[in-house]
């Protein structure tokens, strides 16, 4: 057997394994998805809002926190202007004037989000630290729900939220919405094995003591929300998610911005992977990071790159000569797809199985998170789903490669 079929079998085994793994967790836990209860007793929370050129969004973000059903006297907002060149600082000052007892401002040179958060952490006075991105705004119940998790599960050290898109108008936004929902579903499943490895920027809340104990956010990592998640887990802290704590965030509206954002995420993920590579051999020290998070993350990266490498390899040795000879012959015939179904082999079996599994998997995630709009055939929901699962996801290995290259070149450092 050649190397290509072996690589393909490896890819199949990995995908199959994790599909089954998450499905089993779901079967065991689906009735616990929406069991979160709001906090009965309100505890003090300092909400940090790092802002770089967010003049158009930060106002909405502050307003949503103030409009929350969480008592204002329990909230402290620390807004950090990270060297913005727009009117961010002006807007922050306007709101500080209105709520001088609640809002504090830190004005710093542009040094990155992690530095901004760490500077705010130094002056935060409350028992809990919330991080809210300046382009995100909270549902009015979000804080009560997220704090409810700390109250009902006292061993909890950090809680993240249900991230929803503000707008779902364009095709790109709709595809991102499907993606966000699937990620959210997996994140909830990861909670049940104690492996939520990211506390995303739109809304996450931490115990201040824990955050300070582990040294705050990593200022060298460009996705500090991934790194802090890994660090919390590796030090044995518990991270949970509340699906009832909803936060709305902006998704990139055009392809260029989307690409840039995803390259940054991939680069941050890769940076984190490199930082924790030693965890693979130190199971006792790194706990769940060593046992699950690192292998899962590394395998995801590897299989993604492997699949891409197979496609590129085949294109070079088959695709290019085929195009070349078609030009010479002035005759082209599209490759037969029918034979893959008419003359089945184990690859047909696995291909169909995995495709159906991915559709079921995403469908369950969308249905279980009550996003039933995707299954309106008349509005093209199934089409969005299929395009997301095929072309949209096919771009990720390229994004990952770009992220890895940029990190290795040292282009991405704060």
């Amino acid at each position, binding site marked *: *057997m050649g190397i290509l079929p072996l690589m393909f079998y490896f890819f199949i085994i990995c995908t199959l394994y994790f599909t089954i793994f998450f499905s089993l*967790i779901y079967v065991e836990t689906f009735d616990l998805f929406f069991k979160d209860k709001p906090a009965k007793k309100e505890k003090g929370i300092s909400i940090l809002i790092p802002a770089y050129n967010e003049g158009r969004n930060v106002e909405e973000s502050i307003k949503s926190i103030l409009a929350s059903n969480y008592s204002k006297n329990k909230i402290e907002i620390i807004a950090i202007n990270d060297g913005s060149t727009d009117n961010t600082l002006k807007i922050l000052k306007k709101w500080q004037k209105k709520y001088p007892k609640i809002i504090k401002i830190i004005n710093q040179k542009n040094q990155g989000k992690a530095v901004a958060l760490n500077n705010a952490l130094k002056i935060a006075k409350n028992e809990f630290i919330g991080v809210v991105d300046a382009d995100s705004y909270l549902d009015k119940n979000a804080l009560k729900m997220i704090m409810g998790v700390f109250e009902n599960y006292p061993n909890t050290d950090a809680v993240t939220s249900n991230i929803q898109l503000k707008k779902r108008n364009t095709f790109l936004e709709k595809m991102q919405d499907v993606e966000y929902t699937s990620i959210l579903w997996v994140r909830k499943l990861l909670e*049940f094995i104690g492996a939520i490895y990211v506390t995303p920027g739109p809304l996450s809340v931490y115990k201040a003591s824990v955050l300070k104990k582990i040294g705050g956010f990593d200022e060298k990592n460009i996705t500090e929300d991934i790194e802090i998640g890994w660090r919390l887990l590796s030090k044995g802290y518990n991270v949970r998610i509340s699906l009832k704590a909803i936060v709305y965030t902006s998704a990139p509206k055009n392809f260029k911005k989307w690409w840039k954002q995803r390259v940054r995420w991939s680069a941050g993920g890769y940076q984190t992977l490199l930082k924790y590579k030693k965890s693979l051999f130190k199971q006792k020290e790194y706990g769940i990071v060593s046992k699950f998070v690192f292998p899962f993350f590394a395998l995801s990266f590897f299989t993604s790159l492997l699949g891409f490498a197979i496609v590129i390899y085949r294109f070079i040795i088959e695709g290019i000569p085929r195009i070349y000879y*078609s030009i010479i012959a002035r*005759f082209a015939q599209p490759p037969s797809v029918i034979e893959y179904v008419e*003359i089945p*082999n184990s690859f047909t079996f696995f291909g169909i199985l995995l495709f159906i599994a991915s559709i079921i998997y995403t469908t369950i995630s969308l249905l279980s998170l009550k996003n039933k709009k995707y299954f309106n055939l008349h509005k093209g929901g199934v089409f969005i789903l299929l395009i997301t699962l095929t072309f949209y996801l096919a771009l990720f290995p390229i994004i990952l490669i770009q992220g890895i290259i940029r990190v290795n070149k040292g282009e991405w450092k704060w």
Partner: protein
Amino acid sequence: MVNIIRTAITSGILTLIIFSAGILFGVEMQKNRINEIKNDYKEMQISWNDIQLQSDIIQENLKTNNEKFCENMINENLRFGDDIYERGKKIATYEKRNDFETNLYVEKREYNLLRLQFWINSISIKEMCNNSDYINVVYLYKDNVTTTKKVEQDKISELLFNIKQEYGKNIMLIPLATDLNLTSVNAMMNKYNITEFPTILFNENITISKVIPKNEIEEIINEQLLASH
């Protein structure tokens, strides 16, 4: 909390079961296809024997009713040619779709011999029936080549198949693998002085050994068809 160890082990077992089922499915499909090829070969052998017997009968009757018997013989030969061509394609496709390297070497040699016999028969018919309306297009290729070379061969194969569909009964298309260790095939290569592969041999006198535009192949065929009338 879910017991991660238990879930991981259960997932592993289920993965193993599903993966094994997929592999077994592939193996079973492959077995069926090999049996199908073997049965096809038996049928082709019967057809070939039938054609040969017919050829013997016709040769005896050539003096009495030349034209009618020639037409019959050519038609039967064409039918057999189409049949063996299709089955050859089937073997190639099956081989490509097999999961595991299989020993189709023997089957390919058997078919190759049948094709060679068919080619020789086509030459004889042309000689016997002076005024034939078809030309022999023999496509000589190698079975064991690099992927890039295979793409080149496949392109010629696609071209010829497409041309065959356009010209129908005017072409006897005979693909022949030249590296299956058959001395008779080697003898034919020597006879027509063929050293490069892939090569297209038109009516045993014109050779092309590279991919050329479709219309140029058609021009050669048209000239040959005109010459044979």
